[in-house]
């Protein structure tokens, strides 16, 4: 699929979020266009993860609305978000530790399962057929991410880098239209980062998946993203093309001020 940036598919308007008295996000608006790679950056505690959590409904903002493909959501919840084709990875890997790699990724196919509980219990008819179909799909993702050798390994035993990859795999297995990546490269060495970059770009390129990405590594962000939002203390201080953002004095001061 060729990568042509399309219309706005996700639009956040005036989102504010607070925990008790603590304001995490204040009046933030930004949009995401189809097929683009949109990065969210900012110092620690800027509210980046909160932003993602608002998008897929883990947190409910006190104010503001989310417009997804023209549909207005004042309250998103994770299930609705998943149905709408939003999937995500987690900053502190949230894999299902008791399951192996295949099963973890198979959970990503959950929304596409049509057979009911009784059919599944009998392992009969549609249930069995589906199980095979989805397995084939998951194997495609496994091939894509080059993790064939760890298929049957319980995820708890995998090294960190591979866990990150499986986390991505699970999100991909959903065949999302929007993929939220929460620091996919945090804690990786250079080689692993390169692999991960490659995967992100390939996903975007091959499947046309819209990607919203949180990342600390400025070099990576500037390299791969189409547009960048900058947050600081829960406020938006910059938004635009990587070069524009890089030149934004407010961003520079925030970055220099906060992270040494």
């Amino acid at each position: 699929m060729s990568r042509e940036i399309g219309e706005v598919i996700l639009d956040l308007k005036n989102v504010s979020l607070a925990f008790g008295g603590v304001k995490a996000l204040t009046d933030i608006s930004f949009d995401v266009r189809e097929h683009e790679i949109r990065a969210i950056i900012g110092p620690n505690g800027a509210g980046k993860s909160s932003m993602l959590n608002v998008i897929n409904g883990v947190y409910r903002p006190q104010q503001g609305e989310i417009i997804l493909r023209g549909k207005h959501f004042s309250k998103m919840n994770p299930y609705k978000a998943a149905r709408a084709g939003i999937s995500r990875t987690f900053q502190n890997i949230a894999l299902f530790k008791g399951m192996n790699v295949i099963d973890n990724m198979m959970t990503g196919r959950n929304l596409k399962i049509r057979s009911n509980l009784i059919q599944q219990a009998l392992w009969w008819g549609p249930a069995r057929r589906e199980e095979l179909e989805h397995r084939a799909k998951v194997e495609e993702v496994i091939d894509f991410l080059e993790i064939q050798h760890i298929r049957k390994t319980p995820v708890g035993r995998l090294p960190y880098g591979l866990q990150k990859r499986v986390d991505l795999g699970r999100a991909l297995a959903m065949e999302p239209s929007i993929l939220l990546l929460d620091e996919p490269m945090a804690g990786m060495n250079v080689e692993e980062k390169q692999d991960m970059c490659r995967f992100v770009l390939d996903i975007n390129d091959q499947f046309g998946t819209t990607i919203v990405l949180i990342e600390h590594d400025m070099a990576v962000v500037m390299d791969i993203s189409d547009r960048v939002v900058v947050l600081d203390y829960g406020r938006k201080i910059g938004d635009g093309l990587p070069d524009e953002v890089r030149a934004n004095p407010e961003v520079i001061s925030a970055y220099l001020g906060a992270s040494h």
Partner: protein
Amino acid sequence: MGFFIETLIGGLMAGMLYSLVALGFVLIYKASGVFNFAQGAMLLFAALAMARFSAWIPEWLGIDSLWLANVIAFFIAGALMYLVAWLIERLVLRPLVNQEGATLLMATLGIAYVLEGLGTSIFGTAIYKIDVGMPKEPVLILEGIFEGGLLINKEDFVAALIAAVLVALLTLFFQKTVTGRALRAVADDHQAAQSIGIPLNHIWVIVWFVAGIVALVAGVIWGSKLGVQFSLATVALRGLPVVILGGLTSIPGAIIGGLIIGVGEKLSEVYLGPMIGGGIEIWFAYQLALVFLLFRPQGLFGEKIIDRV
């Protein structure tokens, strides 16, 4: 009206004792993150020790004074509880450190079995009495105000008083002593506590010992009311709704929860019970706690649980 007040008082008295059991749960949960199902068995064990030693000591030492025998027996039982705490820390908690809650819960059920078995094989299975000179006969008061007067059980009052004193002492201990402050530090944050140089193992022994003493006091009160026998261990089950109502981590929660449950179950049994067949107090207490839970999942005084992603 007089009867209502009697029931209320009866409930408060029962609640005071539930609070003591719940206090044992809370202390241990706060400091070691263990939901201690063995609290009931500890209570039984302590009460059995107290009852038997207070009978044996006059025989062994040839002393006549009941008071003295009781005091000595109390200290022996206390020492035994220290031994129990030490052994539990050594043999169970230390090897199981950092295991999941369910595993630890199971382990305490194991401890409960061991303590029940040990207690009954060392001390016997008959019904024993603890005679600490509690007044048994009831008194009638305020006969002028209520028809038939208010029947007050002196024993219950003394028991409630002892419970209150114990709670006050514990509060002082936690607020004013170095050890107490260390215990609170552990409760707040294990790693932080360790990093300022508090030996965690030592703390656990102390906490389990304190819980053991609470169990001993509860056992003495209960044993003096009902006799000491095997089913004392089941009072733990009555303390459970109290901790879920009050919150697993809150000492005031344990006390207030205990009173609410005590009053709730007595009132329900007396006023609601006859209508639907009686014997409802146990499940009523649990349902009461459950209803509270639906509104406040962390209990009345528990800390709010926030999910971080």
